[in-house]
């Protein structure tokens, strides 16, 4: 076909223009086949590796929801865009590439299917013009995305793309970006050369190619034709190379990351699968790689090292060795070291069982290919057996393992739906249950919980003492109350925490809410034990509470501690405790909205609300505490930079409340500084652990004169004008 055959009214272009057919086509098909074969084989090898190590786990329930999740994560880039700047860069490349691939598919579809089979062409007329415009636009997006990504990785160098100031860039990171960039640039060159030669007026719609073509005016037509052919082949070869390269590079995330979204847990946030059989197990938790489930290992293959997790990890940001990204990457590296041997072992098992002989020709062929590739890999890498390393203690350092506060920032923000916290708890279970090797102070905490059902070890008989003389009934006295107020250990034993209990009791009494407590029949919720890995103790504590609660026919529960709230709500159902559980801020917000309590007493000052992890990220209770504060007259409410789902942990979660913090800055001090930075004079909290941590932080920062920490319930009592103002005691006046 010659150039002059194009004319206005027949907008379109010839696919394979200037490319001598059919020899090129045959050549291209062969190359495509090879590229796809290399791609497919890579995925097959990876598949075998995914299958080779790990316990079984089913993640195929609720398919509708799973498909929906993948689609929203893919086409809305929901989690990726949670962090706008890198999210947009990724979006430019992702959406750009996606549209370009569709474009190529349209080209191929017309050329190889609709035209030869049905004589139907659709890349013409207005459709062609819009098609050309979009393809150029999205091609440009990709190039912009690649440039910004390179700039971010090599010029801006944000900390999260590294670890402790050292970037974790690999050659692969550059190769991948360059491949993508070069594919688009050569695509535009091919287009521009074609436009330069054929020069149809409508190609102004292919605006990038058209603009580029304007710079080619000096190139002779014949030269341009040759250049076109050369760049066409370069473009085609690199694009095919890209496909072949996917399974062997970070590009694999194109498959593993959506797969991981698909496979994500549908349990409530922070849910930890209990150990269900203590009697027959030899080891507990995860001490070896193959004690993880395959999905827990697969997670690490979905990790793109984006570092979103690290960006808000309270342990990492205060100088501890833990980085969720590093932990996941270390597990991945360890898995990659061990997977070949595991794959070989599975194959040998198959041989030995005689199953291998029953395989079809195709599989047997693949096995032959495998052995050739294995040998090649071996000769390339050398016959080095992976160093004998312990998963817990060496691959994952114990300081990393114990630094985690279970704050859930990593999982909330992971753009690949990786589940870090359950892995950490599984490894802690191994240290605590199987080895009984853990921090002495945490051992004491566990003993205290065992003997007196509270972490402090205060006599269990004193649990109900705070409520004496407040007119609060126990369920033993009146089991017909509407709500059980589950006080928890802080509210029962800690002097500061008791004030929260008293405040809430006053509010409930004032509002006429029917409630009671368990008194000395109440026990520790067990959250700290569970998150420390002491599942055995946790289940014993949980069962005692559940039996007491079910014994009184409890249906609705109010908790002042988000740790108990979360455990009762999400973990107790595993052991026969099914209750409607509310946090006191949920109840108080409702009482205010219903006009049951009136906040008439103004409080002055600048207030900041610190989101408790177990309330916010774990249970999505972000609004009620703020609604309450906004209902209090007089005060000015400000927000810290890290708030809502980006809130920064106080440092007490994940049993860290009971452990020494001797590496780096104290997390509670770091958080207090963030409150000081917004000039708050009151830190309002909804968690007794947070209250302790913030109070200590204020003391440490020597801000006690001008700054205070209060629980929301205490502030509400003040705003109700119900706070008893006790005159200073004058002993001599008596």
């Amino acid at each position, binding site marked *: 076909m010659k150039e002059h055959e194009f004319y206005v009214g027949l907008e379109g272009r010839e696919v394979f223009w200037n490319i001598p057919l059919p020899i090129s086509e045959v050549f291209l098909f062969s190359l495509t086949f090879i590229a796809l074969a290399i791609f497919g084989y890579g995925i097959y090898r990876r598949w075998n590796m995914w299958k080779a190590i790990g316990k079984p786990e089913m993640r195929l329930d609720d398919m509708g929801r799973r498909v929906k999740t993948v689609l929203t994560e893919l086409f809305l880039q929901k989690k990726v865009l949670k962090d706008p700047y890198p999210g947009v860069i990724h979006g430019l490349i992702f959406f750009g590439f996606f549209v370009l691939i569709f474009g190529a598919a349209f080209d191929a579809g017309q050329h190889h299917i609709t035209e030869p089979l049905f004589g139907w062409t659709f890349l013409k007329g207005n459709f062609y013009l819009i098609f050309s415009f979009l393809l150029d636009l999205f091609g440009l997006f990709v190039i912009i995305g690649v440039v910004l990504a390179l700039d971010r990785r090599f010029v801006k160098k944000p900390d999260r793309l590294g670890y402790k100031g050292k970037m974790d860039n690999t050659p692969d990171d550059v190769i991948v970006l360059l491949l993508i960039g070069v594919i688009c640039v050569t695509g535009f060159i091919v287009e521009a050369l074609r436009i330069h030669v054929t020069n149809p007026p409508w190609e102004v719609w292919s605006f990038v190619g058209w603009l580029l073509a304007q710079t080619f005016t000096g190139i002779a037509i014949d030269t341009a034709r040759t250049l076109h052919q050369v760049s066409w082949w370069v473009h085609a070869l690199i694009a095919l190379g890209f496909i072949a390269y996917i399974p062997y590079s970070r590009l694999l995330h194109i498959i593993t990351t959506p797969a991981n979204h698909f496979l994500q847990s549908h349990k409530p946030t922070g849910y930890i699968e209990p150990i269900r059989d203590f009697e027959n197990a030899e080891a507990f938790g995860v001490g070896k790689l193959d004690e993880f489930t395959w999905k827990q290992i697969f997670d690490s293959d979905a990790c793109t090292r984006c570092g979103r997790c690290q960006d808000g990890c309270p342990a990492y940001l205060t100088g501890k060795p833990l980085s969720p990204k590093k932990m996941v990457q270390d597990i991945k590296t360890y898995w990659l070291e061990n997977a070949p041997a595991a794959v070989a072992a599975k194959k040998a098992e198959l041989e030995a069982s005689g199953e291998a002989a029953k395989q079809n020709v195709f599989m047997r062929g693949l096995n032959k290919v495998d052995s050739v590739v294995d040998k090649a890999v071996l000769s390339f890498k050398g016959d080095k057996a992976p160093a004998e390393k312990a998963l817990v203690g060496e691959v994952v350092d114990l300081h990393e393992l114990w630094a985690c506060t279970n704050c859930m920032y990593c999982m909330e923000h992971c753009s690949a739906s990786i589940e870090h916290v359950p892995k950490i708890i599984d490894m802690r279970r191994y240290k605590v249950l199987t080895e009984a090797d853990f921090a002495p102070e945490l051992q004491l905490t566990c*003993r205290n919980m065992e*003997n007196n059902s509270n972490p402090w070890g*205060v006599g269990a008989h004193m649990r109900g003492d705070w409520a004496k003389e407040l007119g609060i009934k126990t369920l033993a006295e009146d089991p017909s109350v509407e709500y059980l107020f589950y006080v928890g250990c802080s509210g029962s034993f800690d002097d500061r925490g008791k004030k929260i209990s008293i405040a809430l009791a006053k509010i409930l009494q004032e509002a006429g809410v029917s409630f009671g407590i368990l008194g000395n029949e109440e026990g520790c919720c067990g959250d700290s034990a569970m998150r420390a890995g002491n599942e055995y103790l946790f289940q014993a504590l949980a069962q005692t509470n559940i039996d007491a609660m079910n014994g009184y026919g409890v249906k609705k529960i109010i908790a002042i501690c988000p740790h108990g709230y979360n455990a009762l709500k999400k973990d107790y159902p595993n052991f026969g405790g099914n209750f409607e559980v509310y946090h006191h801020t949920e109840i108080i917000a409702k009482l205010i909205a219903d006009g049951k309590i009136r906040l008439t007493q103004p409080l002055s000052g600048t207030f900041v609300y610190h989101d408790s992890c177990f309330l916010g990220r774990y249970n999505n209770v972000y609004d009620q505490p703020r609604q309450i504060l906004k209902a209090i007259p007089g005060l000015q409410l400000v927000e810290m930079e890290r708030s809502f789902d980006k809130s920064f942990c106080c440092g007490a979660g994940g049993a860290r409340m009971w452990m020494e913090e001797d590496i780096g800055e104290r997390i509670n001090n770091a958080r207090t500084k963030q409150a000081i930075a917004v000039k708050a004079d009151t830190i309002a909290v909804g968690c007794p652990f947070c209250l302790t941590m913030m109070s200590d932080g204020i003391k440490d920062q020597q801000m006690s004169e001008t700054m205070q920490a209060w629980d929301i319930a205490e502030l509400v009592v003040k705003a109700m004008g119900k706070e008893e103002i006790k005159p200073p005691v004058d002993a001599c006046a008596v």
Partner: protein
Amino acid sequence: MNIIACVKQVPDTEAQIKVKADGSGIEEGQIKWVMNPYDEFGVEEALKLKEKNGGEVTVVSVGPARAMETIRTALAMGADKGVHICDPAFDSADAFVVANALAAVIKTLPHDIIFCGQRAIDDDSGQVGAMLAEALGLPQLTLVTKLDFAGTSVKVIRPIEGAQLLIETALPCVVTCQKGLNEPRYASLPGIMKAKKKPVDVKDAAAVGIATDAKAKVAKTVPPPARPPGKIICGDEPAQKAAELGRLLREEAKAI
């Protein structure tokens, strides 16, 4: 090496102790029972010796049926077997009877070293270890805070006021353990599970074969008197208040 650890079940240090109305003892209903903390040091030291030198650890306890829990705790920590001396005849046993009962049982067992707590935190008598050594005719090393095993003998450190004694004796011997000797381990879960299946030999008074008549009898149990309230010295002048404090310390408290 054959190691014996003697353990006693006592109320948790935080438990609320209520005296029975008739003064015949304490109310046991609500009490959380634990292993005597000083005995834990003994069990831990026994386990450390076993881990280093091989051998077997046997826990021996005198106590009612509930004391079995404490024996299981020691077995969960890693002890190999237990002997539970359990008979109502021992309900009113004093240190002398308990020491004799332990001695009678231990005589029937091979023993190179015997650990006891320096005292039990319930009755605080601190006599059983010493009496046991006497009953067995063995050397006794009491209030030990450090122990070095040297094949056929042990060297221990025993703090005394202002100094430490370094004592050496040949085995077998009785060692009573003081805080500082070690940090008792937390039982692993496999340990707890295995403990359920370890052998515990339950012996009644007849099997032990000793006289169970106590030398000392508890006449009556009474709660300690309530503490009198503190006194606040009032006045305007610090000097005047100091003088009053001095007078009270001399005349009322007789402290100076």
